[in-house]
């Protein structure tokens, strides 16, 4: 459990997360100085929590690929929202819900966690559980080919994180 110190003797990951969280706080509070009284302890607690729960070695995203990914994500969020709104607006709610197993090719870690969260925001799908390397999805309509959509999402997350597909497939 406590091997993380050996993997990262300089603790640079902690510093980076500290700086990122501090910047977030800075924007959220509109640079209000007295807010740091609350912010600083929260940030320190978050960094400690992050250090203790972090899974395997972290990947970092390719910033160059972030705009394309964001555009794709926004478009699908819009479709997902409209899908739910449309189903709710119909005189009779038409749903054919059920669970689907999706075998993940991404290794455990940041990228996988990110994918699991992204899937919940895609149209019609919700990440219910991860059992080993299988993602258990809940879908609003099991007659739709969800598999292809999640495959596409996984490919995009893989590319965003700059992970070599051939390594993850092995």
């Amino acid at each position, binding site marked *: 459990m406590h091997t993380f110190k050996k993997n990262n003797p300089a603790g640079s990951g902690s510093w980076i997360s500290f700086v990122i969280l501090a910047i977030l706080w800075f924007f*959220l509070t509109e640079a209000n100085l007295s807010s740091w009284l609350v912010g600083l302890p929260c940030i320190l607690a978050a960094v400690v929590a992050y250090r203790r729960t972090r899974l395997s070695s972290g990947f970092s995203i390719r910033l160059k690929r972030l705009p394309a990914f964001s555009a794709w994500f926004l478009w699908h969020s819009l479709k997902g929202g409209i899908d739910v709104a449309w189903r709710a607006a119909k005189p009779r709610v038409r749903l054919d*819900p059920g669970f689907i197993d999706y075998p993940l090719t991404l290794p455990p870690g940041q990228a996988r966690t990110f994918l699991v969260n992204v899937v919940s925001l895609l149209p019609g799908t*919700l990440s219910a559980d991860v059992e080993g390397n299988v993602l258990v999805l809940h879908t609003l309509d099991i007659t739709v080919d969800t598999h292809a959509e999640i495959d596409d999402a996984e490919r995009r997350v893989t590319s965003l994180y700059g992970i070599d597909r051939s390594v993850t497939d092995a």
Partner: protein
Amino acid sequence: MAILGWLFIAAGVVFFLMGTIALLRFPDLFTRLHALTKADNLGLGMIAAGLALQAGSALLALKFLLIWVLVMLASASVSHLIARTARHSQNLREHKS
């Protein structure tokens, strides 16, 4: 800018309303989580974008967008936790009966 901002906010309110209607009309816990994670996030995103357009300062605009991203992160993780817990307790009940 101001008019465009109001349009975004109005659209956001509509999505919040539809999300709430979906929450009431959808049949079970899992389908209701779909309503929360999708319609409400989109609604909040549109309200945040609308407010950002009217903010008048880049710092404030960035703050609204940041709030959206953070809430989205929280709602995706929370709905995942609720779904997982519900699924596990359902499995337990089936094993007992």
